[in-house]
Structure formats: structure tokens, C-alpha cells
């Protein structure tokens, strides 16, 4: 499986510089939102955790349209690695390329912009990493569902966003709770549960869906 993972990762980062694009989009989107909201520091510090999570979700959506396109599905189906394992590797590659850079850098940026939130750093790192994992896994599911359809991008967003709402709510909730010095462990535990469930179940579901589509063709 490591071989498949590295293969996917190389494809994602080499061809279109996905890593840089996602992180760049995220940075620009945050900046745009901050400009729109205005420089009031009180409002910003209240809004920023939720904003970061929402924009991370949207950045994850960006990489999805070419997740399964141009993929040689016949090769995958015949390969020695089982399809669910390959799908898991795909989700992890997407995670590494898009989610993790944001998960690492965003809390640092937030701690710079919002005074006194350095204590949040571990919570935000963990939370963003876990929700990035969920978004990538659920995004893989959405890509599998829309495989072979025309007009992909908006449809994928339409499908994936409702399903990604729970990790979003728990992640942003954890960050807000940490910001107010309340208990952030409970939402974080839920978020971890969702991340584990999605990373294990979504590859199986995606593999099953792809197999059904390919064999019914």
C-alpha cells in the first residue's frame, strides 16, 4: 500500500502543484474574508476559528475534481493492492497534499493574528489535522459518487458539503471552546471518532461504488 500511496502523492504534487495551490487558496480566502469582515479585532477573534475550519473544507474541495479523473481505473482494479486499500491511499495522499499543510500552517497564522491565542496551538493542530482527514475521506466518497458524470465540480460540492458538516461543527466547536477556556476535549473526541470512522469506512464505500459503476458499464 505504501507504493500506491507514494504513487498517488507524486502524481498529485507533481502535475499541478496541488500542495501550493491549496495552501495558497486557503491563505487568500482567509485574507479576503478578513477584509470583508473588517479590522475589528474582537469580532475577528470570535469568528476566526470557525472561519479557518470552513475555509479548510473549501480548500479540500478544490483538490477533489481531479482526484479520480484521469485515473487508470482498470489498472487499479487489477493491481495487487486491494481496491479499498488503494482508495485509502488516495485519501491519504489527498490529505497530505491539501489538508496537512493547511493544518500545520493555519494555527501558526492564527496565533500571529489573534493575540493571546498561542495556547490554542495544540488544540488547533490536532483539530485541523483530524477534520482534514475527515474532509479528504468524505471527499473521496463524493468523487467516487460523481465518477463519470458531466459537470462535476458543483455537484461534488453539493454532495460533500452536507456530509462534511459534522466534522466542521465539532472541529470549530472545539476551537471555540478552547478559545473561551472551556472544555474542548468532548468535541475533539467526537471529531476524532468521525475522522476514524470516515477514514476506515469511506475507502470501502468508494471502492464498492467504483466497482459497481465499472462493472455495470
Amino acid at each position, binding site marked *: 500500500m505504501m507504493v500506491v500511496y507514494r504513487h498517488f502523492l507524486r502524481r498529485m504534487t507533481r502535475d499541478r502543484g496541488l500542495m501550493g495551490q491549496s495552501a495558497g487558496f486557503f491563505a487568500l480566502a482567509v485574507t479576503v474574508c478578513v477584509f470583508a469582515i473588517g479590522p475589528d479585532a474582537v469580532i475577528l477573534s470570535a469568528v476566526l476559528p470557525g472561519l479557518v475550519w470552513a475555509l479548510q473544507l473549501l480548500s479540500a474541495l478544490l483538490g477533489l475534481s481531479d482526484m479520480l479523473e484521469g485515473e487508470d481505473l482498470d489498472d487499479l482494479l487489477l493491481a495487487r493492492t486491494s481496491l479499498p486499500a488503494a482508495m485509502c491511499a488516495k485519501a491519504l495522499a489527498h490529505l497530505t497534499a491539501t489538508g496537512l499543510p493547511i493544518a500545520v500552517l493555519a494555527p501558526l497564522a492564527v496565533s500571529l493574528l489573534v493575540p493571546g491565542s498561542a495556547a490554542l496551538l495544540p488544540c488547533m493542530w490536532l483539530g485541523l489535522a483530524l477534520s482534514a482527514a475527515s474532509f479528504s475521506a468524505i471527499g473521496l466518497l463524493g468523487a467516487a459518487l460523481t465518477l463519470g458524470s458531466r459537470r462535476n465540480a458543483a*455537484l461534488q460540492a*453539493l454532495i460533500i458539503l452536507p456530509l462534511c458538516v459534522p466534522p466542521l461543527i465539532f472541529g470549530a466547536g472545539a476551537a471555540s471552546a478552547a478559545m473561551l477556556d472551556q472544555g474542548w476535549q468532548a468535541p475533539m473526541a467526537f471529531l476524532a471518532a468521525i475522522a476514524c470512522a470516515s477514514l476506515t469506512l469511506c475507502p470501502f464505500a468508494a471502492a464498492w461504488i467504483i466497482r459497481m*459503476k465499472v462493472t455495470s458499464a
Partner: protein
Amino acid sequence: MITRFANPARFESLAKTLLPVLAAMATVLLAFGLVDALLLSPPDYQQSDAVRIMYIHVPSAWMAMFLYACCGGAALTFIVWKHTLAELFLRAALPVGACATAICLVTGMLWGQPMWGTWWVWDARLTSVLVLMFLYVAIIALTGAFDRPEHGSIAAAWLTLIGLVNLPVIKYSVEWWNTLHQPSSLTSLNRMANPALSGEMLRPLLIMGLGLTCYLLVVVIVRMRAEIIARRLNASRVQA
């Protein structure tokens, strides 16, 4: 039994007998229900006449969830057994369920504004019903987005199954989170023995609920029959 009804022709004959019965039941029940709801049932002592919106809001909510659950069953049957009728039911029932959800949301808003002074609030039940609405829209969009209709049905069936987790969330949201939407007045047997809802209000509610169920089932059956004819036309066109 399942495979016995996989044959569309047999479904046709079943539908021919079932349809008039359901249509008659729907007409009678809805006629009684509407008269009951709008004229006979008493104005609530707290909410006065605005409580009458409940008689269309709650049955719509029931139908939205009921149809989604039926679609879930149909989706499972389609995926596991490749049952044709299940696929037909899925395609027929989804837009009807979406209509019911939309009506539930809109009438809820129209009820909320005079009663609690707000069109919308992000409490657990409203949010999860809104997610249900998005799910319906996403699944319907998915059915039509493919060049090969079978791919559309497969994708729609899968998304329906995945979205089934939303139903328990809707049902138990008023117990898990304590927010604005009132807790259910009808659930446990204990509650039924000492109903929080008086008999005079329960009766129109149940009649409207049953009537709406029969009515929407009629719509679904008509849609299924239309779908069968459409497929036959397509098949003969492809062969020709």
C-alpha cells in the same frame, strides 16, 4: 416475495388495483382532515389560530422522513439485489420527499414568525431537517448528472444510504440538544397515555398524517408507472 414483484408488469397490475383505493382513501382523509384542521379543531389557548399550521407542518415532516426511510430501503434493495422496482421507486419518490421537506421547512418558518418571533434559528432539529433538504437536492441532482442512467441510480442509491444517518439525528435531536423546537408530544407509550396533545388536536393531526401519506403514495405510484413507460419507450427506441 421481493423477486416476485421485480417484474414491472406485475407491478402494473398491482398498481392498477392499488391506485383507486389509495386515491379514494386520500380524498376522504384529506377532506375530513382539512375541515377538521381548519374549522373544527379548537384554537390553542396559547397560540390561538396559528396552531393550525401544525396540521400541515407536522404531517409534511413525517412524510419527509418516511419517504426518505423508504428510499433508503429501496436503495439497499437496489444495491444488494439489483431490484428494478426498487430503482424505480427511488427515482419516483425522491422528488416527492423533497417537496415534503420543503413544505415542512417553509410552513415551519411561517409558524415560527408569529409564534416565536423568528423565521429561523440554528437549533438542532431545524438544522438537521435543512441537511435533509440538501441531501434530497444532492441526490436528485446526482440521478440526472450521468450519461448512463444506471450510474445515476447507483450513485443516488449510495448517497441515500449514506444520508440515512441523518434520520436518527432528526428524530432524537430534540432529546439530545435542548433548544428551541419543542420536544415530541407523541412518542413514548407513556406519553400516549397522558398525551401532551389533547384528543381534539390529535385527531386532525392523525387524519392529516394518514391522508397525506395516502396522497403522496398515489403521486409516487403514478410517477413509477410513468417511469416504466418511459423506459419501455427508450428501450424500443434503442433497439429500433
